[in-house]
């Protein structure tokens, strides 16, 4: 056999996924996206390009939105990960999800989980209050949608930002790690 011996290398990782501690022995080369989808069955994280451009695989890693296709599962030792499933279960994404539905912010829906995760990070950013449409378009440019032309997505996120910042009772949720 001429296989690269590194192919067979395994490592053990401990991390927290959607609030639940996870311990696993994984191939050292296993992508985080494949780990989430194929080992944990969290198939809401979609894989669109596997080179970090399309953003469909976006998850929250220790408070920051990141691309799970550009990380190895082994790199996430000791980390906390929130996937679209976790954000949905906790209700943290519900406002964005409803706004996407209301504004036809999705057609095929493949890019939607990644957009929702990115949008959650944006709306929880206190700086989003004064964001112009142009700035929001730039901020969301890390996620690709091939169906909608983005109009419904931009409108949805703008509505959620407006609703959050109009509310005086607004309290930021989650870890404020964007600064």
């Amino acid at each position, binding site marked *: 056999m001429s296989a690269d011996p590194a192919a067979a290398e395994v490592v053990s990782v401990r991390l927290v996924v959607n609030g639940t501690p996870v311990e696993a022995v994984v191939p050292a080369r296993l992508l985080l996206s494949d780990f989430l989808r194929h080992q944990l069955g969290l198939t809401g994280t979609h894989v669109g390009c596997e080179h970090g451009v399309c953003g469909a695989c976006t998850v929250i890693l220790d408070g920051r939105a990141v691309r799970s296709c550009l990380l190895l599962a082994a790199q996430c030792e000791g980390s906390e990960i929130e996937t679209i499933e976790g954000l949905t279960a906790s209700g943290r994404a519900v406002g964005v999800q409803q706004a996407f539905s209301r504004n036809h912010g999705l057609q095929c829906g493949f890019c939607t989980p990644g957009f929702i995760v990115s949008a959650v990070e944006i709306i929880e950013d206190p700086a989003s209050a004064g964001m112009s449409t142009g700035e929001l378009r730039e901020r969301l*440019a890390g996620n690709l949608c091939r169906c909608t032309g983005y109009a419904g997505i931009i409108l949805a996120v703008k509505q959620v930002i407006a609703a959050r910042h109009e509310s005086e009772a607004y309290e930021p949720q989650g870890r404020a790690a964007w600064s």
Partner: protein
Amino acid sequence: MRSPFACARIKSIDVSAAEDMPGVAAVVTSATLGFDRSLPVMRDHAGLKNPASPQILAGTMVRYSGEPVAMVLAENRYLAEDALEVIVVDYEELPAVIDASSAEAGAAGTVHEWMTDNLAGSFTQRTGNLDVAFAAAPRLVTFSCSIERGSAQALEARGIAAVPEADGVRVWASTQRPRGIRILLADYLSLPLDAVHLHVPDIGGSFGSKAYLYAEDLLITMAAVRYQRPVRWTEDRAENFLATYPEHVQVFEVEVGAEPDGRLIALRVRLLHDLGAYSPYGFAVCQNTADHVVGPYGIPNVEFSCRAVYTNKIPSAPYRGAGRPQGVFVIERAMDALARALGMDPAEVRRRNLIAPDAMPHDTGLDTPAGRLVYDSGDYRQCLDIALRESDYDGWRARQRELRAGGKLVGVGLANYIECSITRPHEAARVALRPDGTFRVGVGVSAQGQGHETVFAQLAADALGVPTTAVMVAGAAEEIVDTVGTYASRSTIMAGNAVVGAATALRGSLEATAASIAGIDPRYVFAVADGIVPGDVGTDVLRWRDLYSAAVELGLALEAEHVFRSGAWHVSNGAHVAVVEIEPVTGQVRFLRYVVAHDAGRVLNQQIVEGQVLGGIAQGVAGTLLEELAYDESGQLLTGNFMDYLLPTSAEVPEVAIYHLETPSPHNPLGVKGAGEGGILPTYAAVLSAVEDAIGTPLSRVPMTAARIASAIRRMAPTQVPALENAGSQ
């Protein structure tokens, strides 16, 4: 494993090391494939003299970079990719034929060794007398142009899973043509149709790219049957660029004969069409180009001729619009060229040629393989006027002069279009009452994000008189009624009218059932939201749930099916106006305004129609300015990832204002027309028109990237740049 060469002879393939790799179950090559056949070719065009069918796995020759050569079946993708690395193929690389012009000239050799040249076929469509018309035309304009549209790039790439069963195989496929694929799988595998169970789950976009029976579909299903194990394949993006068929370049030579007032007398278009290495879709794309090249204009003398050639590139297939944007591109380029030659406003030249609403239906005089091309209805002038007014066209023309005097390159572009849906031959729907008193709608057309579930539920609910929440639309493969499929903006026209027919029939039979239960004349029953009232107002409602039980007991019908048939041309239309500003050094294009006036007949769901238009515009804008399948001289794709092949992001697409006009089609009860492709059709023409207006020099190709725009600006004399007046004459 895919060919690394665009053209090579395979001298040997050694898979023994791969077969010994950990986790590898089998390796399949053409020698062990067990099929003598190749993939299907659409042969419904008389002009396609030399069809070429894609190979399932290449055995002796590879004809494009990316052509499948071997398949590894392993426990997971990581192990399969390890095994691919140790397959040894001895290739003898041969000179490749890459661009269409050299393919046509033939000096570079032939793509197919059984052919003496690269000509797959040709055809001509004409009306009137071109020679007489051109001889008499007071003004003549000639130009050439080319357009390459890139690839669909559905965000979810393709995938298929197959599980063997006692009597056959169960397949989950990302296809937009479930029934066609199922029939082909059964045929290739020599299984009875009933032994192939096909499921189509939610699909992440298609845009035409998922309608074909690709090699992978057949290979995976075959492997599940042969090895009696579940087999799955998921295409990754790198593979998608090499394996999922895009559209290739079309090169045009155009001659226009006109009156001095701008009215077109004659149009002659010669198309050189690049098919890539095979002809899976026959002439589907270039025939659409032919059918859209006259556009919304009344032109008495038209000749369109096409020569289609093979090149050593991935085969082409329809991508949203499927040849239609190219037809629109040509006629709109012609309008701009004529306006320049006559020193007229481009909007005015167009207005003078638009078909008048009282001239509908309009017979183009063109005989196509689908019959005489006749436009059914539409008010093309009003559409253009709305777009001009809402975009403040005249205002921008005036401001443009000041802005240019201040050194800003601002341009206004416009394009009209028609969109012909391909309806023929039929589509069916079935509507059934369920035990819980809700209704189930079954259709054969599958959806990949177009919102079929919403629209069909809406239509059935309206016909039944129930809320949309009482209607569930079943996925295409769960309920296979007689179907042709989702393409060419036909689903709402065909399946939509079938749903209404089936729901109306079901309502009639349920009312008859209620009448017979109540023992009264059926004319005195009527349906309400929660059931049927058998008799006068005030009579107790016979609830749908109870009606179900009663009908079961009486053995009466609980479902109805309807087949809607049509071969008529359903012709949508519209006008786009784009206003752009160009950064003179980098050539970056920024949109200042984008307005659409759109007529797709009756609008059933405005949000969905607008979603289709906006999505099409985003693809068209990027197809004009960003997306390019660039090949090097040896046929290697240079833009095979999202860093080089640039999809539009939210930062690049314009904010679009949409205005609807609703001219119902006379050819179907709902009065609907196609809306799935209208957004993309005129975008290439409108955006290129705006760019060339901004820089004041004619441009002839798409994609027109920022680098090309910048170099066009640099080539111009410095005095030309700020002077708008120079844009009107060459």
